[in-house]
């Protein structure tokens, strides 16, 4: 029972991060029909920027309680600029090209960003400083620490905020209109390019938050960390129904839970033949299963409606 509860907690924490990243994939897909494979790298850049900013600020003697939010804001700003530039430079010129072209470009952007990050931050693992007293709390035998509580609460708050923006504001209405029909939206006076830029920037800001969360939770940052995380978050988006915001949130949380419960119990289930190192396999097993049995995802529209 303790294991079960512990894995639920771990799953929720990891799932919150997946959900934030999956939202970035799904927003861009919803509006452009493009899978932005460089999104995982934006998460990595967010983590690296936050780490550099934190190191510098604490070096100047700033209190961690001030440095942490400041470096988060800085990372968000940096990633928004990065997301904007990626769209402007790599995707916009290909807006009317066949769909395969921007997809390949996305992979290219991803490789470029990884290598740039390697040149700037090096190949080694960076330890993420533990700045706040990370108090563990015991609930019914399971342990949850402060950082994990902060991650879950922040992720939920951000997701709720995003839903309000998308469903209750002029900007969100424009985003939904562009997602449905760019031409018609344009004729109603919506500046489609601007809406697309903003979508990339919002997604990238969420990616920065997720990047900081991951590295703070695991205490590590690395130039390659965005790759697997990005793929898993993409899986989460597909699981929930890509293009659907609620789907990305649900998919993210579910994937986190599936992974951590799977990792927790696979040893017992296979009589010790497979261990928790098989954790990563679950995500891709889920991806395959979804693509085979329900390609439109849990909350996805029927594909015919999109086409």
């Amino acid at each position: 029972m303790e294991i079960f509860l512990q894995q639920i907690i771990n799953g929720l924490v990891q799932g919150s991060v997946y959900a934030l990243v999956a939202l970035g994939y799904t927003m861009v897909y919803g509006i452009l029909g493009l899978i932005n494979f460089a999104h995982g790298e934006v998460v990595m850049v967010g983590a690296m920027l936050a780490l550099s900013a934190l190191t510098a600020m604490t070096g100047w003697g700033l209190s961690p309680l001030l440095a942490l939010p400041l470096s988060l804001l800085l990372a968000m700003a940096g990633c928004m600029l990065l997301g904007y530039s990626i769209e402007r430079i790599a995707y916009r010129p290909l807006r009317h090209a066949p769909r395969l072209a921007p997809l390949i470009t996305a992979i290219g952007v991803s490789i470029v960003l990884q290598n740039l990050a390697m040149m700037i931050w090096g190949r080694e693992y960076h330890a993420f400083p533990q700045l706040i007293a990370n108090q563990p709390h015991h609930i019914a035998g399971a342990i949850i620490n402060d950082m994990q509580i902060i991650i879950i609460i922040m992720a939920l708050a951000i997701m709720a905020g995003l839903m309000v923006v998308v469903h209750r504001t002029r900007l969100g209405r424009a985003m939904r209109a562009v997602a449905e029909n760019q031409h018609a939206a344009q004729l109603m006076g919506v500046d489609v390019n601007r809406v697309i830029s903003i979508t990339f920037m919002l997604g990238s800001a969420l990616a920065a938050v997720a990047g900081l969360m991951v590295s703070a939770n695991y205490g590590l940052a690395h130039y390659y960390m965005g790759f697997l995380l990005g793929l898993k978050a993409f899986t989460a988006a597909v699981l929930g129904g890509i293009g659907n915001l609620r789907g990305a949130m649900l998919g993210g949380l579910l994937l986190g839970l599936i992974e951590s419960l799977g990792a927790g119990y696979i040893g017992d289930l296979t009589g010790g033949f497979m261990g928790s190192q098989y954790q990563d396999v679950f995500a891709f097993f889920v991806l395959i299963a979804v693509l085979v049995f329900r390609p439109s995802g849990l909350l996805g529209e029927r594909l015919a409606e999109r086409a």
Partner: protein
Amino acid sequence: MTPHLLKLSGIGKQFGGLSALTDVSLHINAGEIYGLIGPNGAGKTTLFNVITGLYQANSGEFRFNGHSYQTPKPHLLAQAGIARTFQNIRLFANLTALENVMIGCHVRTHAGVFGALLRNKATRTEERASMQRARELLRYVGIDKPAQTLAKNLSYGEQRRLEIARALATEPLLLALDEPAAGMNATETERLKVLLQNIRAKGITVMLIEHDVKLIMGLCDRVAVLDYGRKIAEGVPDEVRGNPAVIAAYLGADDE
């Protein structure tokens, strides 16, 4: 002299080697209802798309409301005061009727990212005004279903009227309608005619493409006829009706 709201001179549009429009010149006066007719494939919709900025003409001059436009972008023309509807309805199907109309208010409202994130007073006031205006427009075009109904759940006639409401929300000077009566029955067409006359009475210039010649002749002040991408006639409905070139275009020229 009535001012020209829209003036096209020598407009040409080619798609690859195909010439869809050749040297089309016309003007629309402020406050009139202007009809554009012609046989299938005459270039009506192409001209319509040029006027609303969806296509860019390859040659010719485009003047609207005293300004010349080189390569007009649709959202800028919307800002300048041209609104349109589509032949095949293009509503935002998964947005509510109210939201569809509110999208139209976008041209005249300004709240951006920070407004959306901070929800300051100016943003909230603007939102309320848009919502109120959208409700009025829904009533005006005669949609009495709840404003929260998704656009895709409205009837065909209602969807057509919703498109007009959405276009009116942009506060246009020129309302351009692409076959507004397509698929409508006689009662619905009559209702549409009354609506368009009301809209003109409010001072909005109306331009429409239509296959229903009876509607065009009964509604328009002036009519232009296109055939093979050229304007072959223009004038008041009765003149155009008797024009031999028009009769030839519609019925086929008499070779013998």
